[in-house]
């Protein structure tokens, strides 16, 4: 159980899952390393949840194979797999107390009562819910239920924990707290986490690595920085963060070639229209059409000379809302480093 183990925790080998005509998962190949916090990111219907369910055993591949620590588990039922799941709706057993819920995995394994109780109480301490064991799930808040679900899934010390949008039902503030807490917990228990979410911010915050899903396929796998700074496809550029996509004639006007590229709004500087452009920079002229003041930063929508639009974000270091609004209608030159023009492959 060491991180140097060369066998991946999970391996997808050309996995397909079709529901009739619908190809929910359409040829996924992926290795998740032992001890990683790995995120499946994608919009709903992109196949990320189906992939998670196939790891758990709730669903089986139409073709292809899934390995857990080197063993082919494609045909094993969930109760014979050494993985546990935190469900989106928590799936707490309504007729059991919190303690019985947490201890369930041990109860099924016929562990002795004292051991069950002791372990379940340890788990409740771990998720910072000490002393709530006697309550019923219906007497808990959403955040508390989430923690109980986590404790229940961790009690069997699985080598892989699957989390299916576990924070989706919580409000923003609680969600942000739990993001930090989950990440800390994962480092504490040292097991592989597979985390499914459609929230790109969440994915970037928590993951060691992530896979971006679209239409049943993986578009890109990489660290958060790689995914954000170097999106491989138009889809990734558009789905992760705000991105400017430039294509066709406009792209040729800027780069000199006809390749579609993306550039992040915060990488662009706004200069006077006649400012000199240094070497190693891309640039284009335009007119500020819209100014949206967002407190921490301001977003400018700039109409380009050759047609098209770019969004530019500028931190409000010294400016105030008064200043930024006078910018509307001004002619400007937009400048950014050539390395920030990410040429894209793949289809939209």
């Amino acid at each position, binding site marked *: 159980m060491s991180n140097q183990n060369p066998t991946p925790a999970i391996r997808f080998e050309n996995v397909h899952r079709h529901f009739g005509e619908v190809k929910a998962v359409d040829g996924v190949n992926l290795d998740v390393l032992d001890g990683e916090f790995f995120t499946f990111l994608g919009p709903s219907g992109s196949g990320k949840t189906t992939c998670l369910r196939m790891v758990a055993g709730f669903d089986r591949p139409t073709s292809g194979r899934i390995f857990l620590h080197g063993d082919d588990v494609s045909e094993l039922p969930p109760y014979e797999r050494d993985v546990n*799941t935190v469900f989106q709706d928590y799936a707490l057993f309504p007729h059991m107390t919190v303690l019985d819920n947490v201890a369930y995995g041990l109860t*099924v394994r016929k562990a002795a009562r004292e051991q069950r109780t002791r372990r379940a109480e340890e788990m409740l301490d771990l998720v910072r819910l000490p002393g709530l064991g006697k309550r019923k799930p219906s007497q808990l808040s959403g955040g508390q239920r989430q923690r109980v679900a986590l404790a229940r899934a961790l009690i069997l010390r699985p080598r892989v924990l699957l989390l299916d949008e576990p924070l989706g039902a919580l409000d923003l503030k609680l969600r942000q707290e739990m993001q930090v807490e989950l990440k800390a917990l994962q480092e504490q228990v040292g097991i592989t986490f597979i985390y499914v979410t459609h929230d790109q911010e969440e994915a970037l915050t928590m993951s060691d690595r992530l896979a971006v899903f679209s239409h049943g396929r993986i578009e890109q796998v990489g660290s958060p920085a790689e995914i954000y700074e170097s999106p491989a496809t138009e889809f990734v550029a558009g789905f992760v963060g705000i991105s400017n996509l430039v294509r066709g004639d406009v792209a040729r006007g800027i780069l000199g070639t006809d390749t579609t590229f993306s550039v992040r709004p915060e990488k662009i500087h706004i200069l006077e229209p006649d400012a000199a452009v240094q070497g190693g920079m891309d640039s284009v002229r335009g007119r500020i059409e819209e100014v949206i003041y967002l407190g921490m930063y301001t977003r400018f929508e700039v109409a380009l000379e050759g047609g098209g639009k770019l969004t530019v974000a500028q931190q409000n270091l010294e400016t105030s809302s008064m200043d930024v609004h006078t910018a509307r209608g001004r002619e400007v030159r937009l400048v950014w480093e050539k390395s920030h023009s990410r040429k894209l492959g793949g289809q939209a």
Partner: protein
Amino acid sequence: MPSKPRDPQAERAPWPISLGALLAVLFINFPIFIIFLYAFTTDEQTFTFPLPGMTLKWFGVAWGREDLWAALGLSVRVAGIATLVALLLGTLAAAAVSRTKFFGREAISFMLLLPIALPGIVTGIALRSAFGLFDIPFSFWTIVIGHATFCVVIVYNNVVARFRRTSWSIVEASMDLGANGWETFKRIILPHIATALLAGGMLAFALSFDEVIVTTFTAGQESTLPIWIFSQLTRPRDRPVTNVVALFVVLIMAIPILLAYRISQRDGETQLSR
């Protein structure tokens, strides 16, 4: 100004509606009270009102009647076994229909409903004609078969309603934590649907205990309690005893109904309309 703060949403009903509602409630309930009254009458031959006198004598007489005990025993055994069969079949069908979407789901719900949706004589004469055609002699079991058939839908409705409000993920969670299909059924599904089964079973028992139309066609010489009462209705021989039996039946049937009602109040789903 009213002294207590009133719900501003609460409206007062126009008097014709209140009156109509009150009369309807009285109409529905007062015959039940008549039963209570007549159980104590001293009148042996007619149903004279006002009662000529009150007595407890007929309770004792009814208690000593062997034929009544036999009829009651038969009714309880029939209802008990019909309920068990209905619990089994209704739960299986509900589980199948709730778990997966398959072709013919609607048809199955409809088929289960038919025995109580169609006029009672249809079910009765159909079973009667089938028993006749295949030379199956009437017996305890022919009664049970008929009763179980129309009780299934009661259990089915209750269990389907429970499953509909249940997220399938608790079953997945159980399997995820190491419980196989049987363990999951025993530890999660069964406790979870237990009250729905109890309510459905109670109602099925009540329905069977009281059934007379289908029973008339499937009973042969056997006499259930409703058959006994029916014979007294058409050819009255033991009026005072019948009065006592009627009271007894009202009281005994209130038990499962009140129980089912309590469950429905708590869970908010039991199908009390039939």
